[in-house]
């Protein structure tokens, strides 16, 4: 078996090895019409084995481009990997928790240590194996990534609580004396939200389903300093 040109003997093997799509070797013996391939995959995802051949046989990526899929192919891979079925509920919950923390690494440079600590504490609480049931849906990584992107874009870190919907979507709540806002990050670049604002005339209830950037604008508007706040101060 000859070594294909895209395998580069570099230290990048280290992080690449973690990526099941990476360590695939394949050669084609045209004369015998026999194709052999070998590689490394995670046993946890049966999808991986099938998927791991595809990028190679497609020849879509050059050696150069392939060697550049660094780090965070490991991290990105985490975003789509399915969890193994043969693990205990406690193990699955723990893996899901670690998975979210791994994903957070992509954004660590933009998170103050105190913010990350608070976030991790909330995740630890949310994904406590003792409070988890078999029928509970594990968190959707895409939803979490949207929440992270939105938080850094909006710089709005002062959420009151985090939760999970029945579908595994991230629910985020903000509370003040006069405003409550609940948002569900759908994992497709949009947010579904509902706000309740106590007014002199009653409670204003507004709901929407908007892009992440639009939601940032709305939150900024909703929690803007108000005249009554200024007077109170």
């Amino acid at each position, binding site marked *: 078996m000859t070594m294909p040109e895209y395998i580069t003997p570099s230290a990048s093997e280290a992080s690449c090895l973690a990526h099941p799509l990476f360590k695939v070797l394949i050669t084609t013996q045209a004369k015998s019409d026999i194709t052999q391939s070998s590689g490394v995959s995670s046993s946890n995802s049966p999808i991986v084995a099938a998927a791991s051949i595809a990028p190679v046989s497609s020849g879509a990526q050059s050696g150069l481009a392939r060697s550049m899929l*660094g*780090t965070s192919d490991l991290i990105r891979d985490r975003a789509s990997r399915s969890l193994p079925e043969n693990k205990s509920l406690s193990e699955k919950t723990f893996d899901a*928790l*670690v998975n979210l923390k*791994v994903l957070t690494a992509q954004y*660590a440079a*933009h998170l103050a240590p105190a913010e990350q600590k608070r976030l991790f504490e909330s995740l630890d609480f949310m994904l406590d194996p003792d409070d988890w049931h078999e029928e509970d849906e594990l968190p959707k990584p895409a939803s979490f990534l949207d929440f992270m992107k939105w938080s850094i874009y909006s710089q709005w870190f002062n959420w009151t609580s985090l939760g999970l919907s029945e579908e595994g979507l991230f629910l985020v709540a903000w509370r003040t004396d006069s405003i409550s806002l609940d948002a569900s990050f759908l994992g497709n670049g949009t947010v579904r939200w509902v706000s309740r604002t106590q007014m002199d005339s009653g409670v204003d209830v507004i709901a929407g389903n908007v892009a992440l950037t639009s939601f940032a604008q709305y939150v900024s508007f909703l929690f803007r300093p108000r005249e009554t706040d200024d007077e109170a101060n």
Partner: protein
Amino acid sequence: MPDDQPYSRPPIIEAVVDLTVTPPLTNKELEQVRIQFKEEYRAIEELRSFKVTVGPKSVASEPALAGYKMNAANGCDVMLLQKNKIVTSRLAPYPGWDRFFSKAKNNFDGFVKRVGRREVIRIGIKTVNRIDIPMRQIEGQRISEFLRLSVFVPDAFARRVKNHALSIVFSHPDHPVDIIVNSSTLNQVLIGHASFSLDIDVVMASGIPLHYDQMWDAIASLRSVKDEVFEQCITDRVRELIR
């Protein structure tokens, strides 16, 4: 911010110490190492190698244990075990070289304690960096405004580059290492930003001391190499962003 870290927002996403050893571990030894570290790295994925043979009438596959990827509960510390490798990886936030170096050394010490002495035949130190640049700062700019190594693009197009990818291998004038630098444009990681990867591999594949203490001294000396390469590759505009 760690004492040895000059930037308040270091762009390191992953730091890796990758040691290739010989002779390779047996499956039993691999399992022993997994058990050795399972309390520290509790989220464990089994890696399997596989060989698929596609013939005219049948397809056969032969799976085999290739190693383990083990994550600590903090989600940041990762160990990768293979029959000929022990890899210590730290995802962001990067705690600084000194702590990371100690972690890698402790892992290797535990590895040797469990499976006995192995000769290290290749050392790889890798840092994966992602540089996030606000769109308003990068639109209409040349990549060379941010990275000091880039693909030459004719003036007519230099400010219209949408994606780039490059890989360069060079040797170091003072250390017996090869340095591999990869950089490319990344898909939008942050809203309103463009991101570049800047991966730096420092590889020592010859002249590795047989004595472990001396080997770790050699690894420690590679820190200045990776830092030097990073500083040489970025511009002051990037420094302003991460300072």
